């Protein structure tokens, strides 16, 4: 019996080593994430350069933003990402129902982000500030709205994988779709982590 199991255990050990050095999710998704990161990097650098060229306008513009709203949005996105990470752990453990519930919690937390962002936009509109007010607000609305679109796309992806997880359609050998969706969501979180200090703090 032992001699029969030995070759199988060697395979397991080899697969464990491979698993510890494998890329989670689909390779195509990582290239897509890289492309998204590049676009945002250009926007962030453009914002920083524009700030150096229009220092006074940017100081006045930033003073009109609600820093606590920015802080709240950062905390909600980090928390949402945390629940997605827990959902992936649950799925790895084979518990699709629990994973789906954690994804729903992640989406509920993310909806707080959307509500706060919309409140921020509306309060700026109330002050007669919009995308055409000046360079600062053009860039502010452009970058934050572009990011918001990514949040909405991420929520659609999370819904899709939550439905599949609830039906237990993922398993140990078929989980790359889940991992790809989770990685996309973490990317959206990571982008906000750079965006927040750039627009609200510095």
């Amino acid at each position, binding site marked *: 019996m032992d001699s029969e199991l030995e070759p199988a255990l060697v395979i397991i050990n080899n697969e*464990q080593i491979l698993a*510890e050095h*494998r890329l989670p999710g689909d390779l195509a998704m*990582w290239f897509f994430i890289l492309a998204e990161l590049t676009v945002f990097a250009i926007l962030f650098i453009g914002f*920083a350069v524009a700030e150096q060229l229009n220092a006074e306008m940017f100081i006045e513009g930033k003073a009109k933003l609600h820093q606590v709203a920015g802080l709240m949005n950062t905390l909600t996105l980090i928390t949402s990402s945390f629940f997605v990470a827990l959902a992936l752990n649950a799925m*790895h453990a084979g518990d699709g129902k629990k994973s789906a519930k954690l994804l729903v919690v992640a989406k509920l937390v993310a909806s707080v982000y959307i509500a706060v962002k919309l409140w921020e936009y509306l309060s700026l509109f109330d002050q007669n500030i919009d995308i055409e007010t000046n360079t600062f607000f053009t860039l502010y609305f452009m970058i934050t709205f572009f990011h918001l679109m990514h949040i909405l796309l991420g929520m659609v992806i999370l819904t899709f994988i939550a439905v599949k997880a609830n039906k237990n359609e993922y398993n140990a050998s078929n989980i790359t779709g889940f991992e790809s969706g989770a990685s996309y969501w973490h990317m959206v979180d990571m982008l906000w982590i750079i965006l927040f*200090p750039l627009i609200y703090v510095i």
Partner: protein
Amino acid sequence: MAYGRYALDNTLPTYLCDLTPMKTLYSNKKNTLSWLWLMILTVISTFIGLVLNNKTLFIGTVLFIVFLKGQQIIDVFMELAQAPKFWRRLFLGYVTVLPIIIGFIYIL
């Protein structure tokens, strides 16, 4: 004769299959600690301007915190710590180089 995972799934008892590689590489505890660290860093970076009067030091600290937070997300949430080094280095490079470029633009 079957090889690889197909062979494993069909020949080994469950208690051995449980040793297969797709088991969670990160525990919920590690994710929770990472989440707490990210929350603390976020609050620090938001209010650090109240105690740091030097512009260069302030910007440098905030951007260093961006790197620390990015590293947590990449290594723990994205699970790239166990991924091929190329991918981990690529993403860590992003949260290193971008804050440096932004820092130079603001400070110079």
